[in-house]
């Protein structure tokens, strides 16, 4: 049995949530709506995040192009993903949606460009 304290991010209310985890059994208290319950379950069972960063561009009109993971990735993978992003450079031109890294850190999810950078 494990207990975790969370703050709900569903709305400005920011309810303080208490989650009791007993194996598969999850009990949420402190929430004032269904969203708080959903949020707490996801946060303790399989928390995910979008990771955003920027990578260097060669021969581009800008030095950097911003990037993001195309979908949510497991929270525990954030630093592995950053490691790969930091090692990456791309060649201009780059367009929004272009794949910058395929299957980033073994998540099966690509990192894509979020900005257009023309070549010089």
């Amino acid at each position, binding site marked *: 049995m494990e207990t975790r304290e*969370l*703050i*709900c*991010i569903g709305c*400005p*209310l*920011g309810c303080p949530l208490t989650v009791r985890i007993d194996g598969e059994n999850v009990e949420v208290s402190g929430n*004032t709506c269904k969203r708080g319950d959903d949020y707490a379950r996801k946060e303790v069972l399989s928390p995910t*995040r*979008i*990771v*955003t*960063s*920027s990578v*260097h561009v060669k021969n581009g009109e*800008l*030095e*950097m192009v*911003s*990037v*993001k993971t195309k979908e949510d990735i497991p*929270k525990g993978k*954030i*630093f592995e993903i*950053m490691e790969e992003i*930091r090692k990456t450079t791309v060649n201009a031109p780059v367009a*929004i949606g272009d794949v910058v890294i395929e299957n980033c850190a073994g998540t099966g999810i690509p990192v894509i460009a*979020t*900005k*257009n950078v023309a070549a010089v």
Partner: protein
Amino acid sequence: MAKHDIVIIGGGPAGLAAAVAARKAGIQDILILERDGCLGGILNQCIHNGFGLHTFKEELTGPEYAARYIEMAEAEKIPYKLNTMVIDINKDKEVTVINKEDGLTTIQAKAIILAMGCRERPRGALNIPGYRPAGIYSAGTAQRLMNIEGFSVGREVVILGSGDIGLIMARRMTLEGAKVKVVAELMPYSGGLKRNIVQCLDDYGIPLKLSHTVVNIEGKERVTGITIAQVGPDRKPIPGTEEHYSCDTLLLSVGLIPENELSRSIGIDMSRITSGPEVNDQLETSAEGVFACGNVLHVHDLVDYVSEEATLAGTNAAEYVKSGEEKGNTHVVELKAENGVRYTVPQTLDINNMQEKVTVRFRVADVYKDRYISVYYDGVQISKKKKKVLAPGEMEQVILKKDSFGEYPDLKNIVICTEVE
């Protein structure tokens, strides 16, 4: 002298949305003036996601949100000038502009839309003792250096102020391998969004110290350490509570100030609370034909509201150009912000000529729990809405409908306030 129907000062989210709206309202001759080398404004450096949930019903990064509006402006073939600085605007709507291609020129506008955005409050405004070493940045400057110019900003970081940019930068620097030691916030609450506190600080175990401020900066060439201390209710440091952190970087996220030097040169009436122009329900300033929208008018929490407001300013500027100043029979009523409501935008409402609905935006003065937001017409309560939590970091709004004024032909004032019960 070059002449244009509508000149828009600033090519960020406000300027772009205003331009697209003005074109859709039928104005062909529009010019956007942008001092940076590209359109999109500050969104270009806001590479995190969370933009556009209201406007596009999806979660975009800043550059993606900007690109949507840049594409709309380009599809409408709206002309713009980059690397172009407006240095003066006068009462006759003559805009003095400087750039490398044209040198110093003057443009005569029929209508002007002010969309210059805001600037960060600098160290000089805070009176922090200590030398002036390298390593002290406003959070937005650090954001630009990292995300656009590709520099590494620092390795060990203390952040003063828990505004959203500071929180976002705490996460950004952590992801880039820096150690963010603490975020100190002068107020007993954070000015940032809940989501950012959880996902930028809690996720990475970065402590947030409320009611704390920086009392000393050490280092002569480069920052070597920071001392923070707890503050009392008077916001003055409490002796004996000092804590020292060794670090090479101090980021400041201590507030945004609308950038209104040009508005002042026109001589328009300014609000002392928003630091932006006072506007009527058309978002027109006290200078006829000069409109304002976005962060130059008041600092927004979400860009989605900037786009919405700017769309209104663009549409109204287009109407002004088409129909001139004739407004017919006006009945202007002042909007008063009272009891915990700090200000309203707009500040006045012409109940004869208003649109069917007018959105009034405002911020509250403190964190309140279980309060009503109430609207009074000449002392009569018209509406009240219960809010479980109100916080200064989040913009609030009420919508006033034209048909609600039918029973008040002699209306003198509208009050928007918070109430306990």
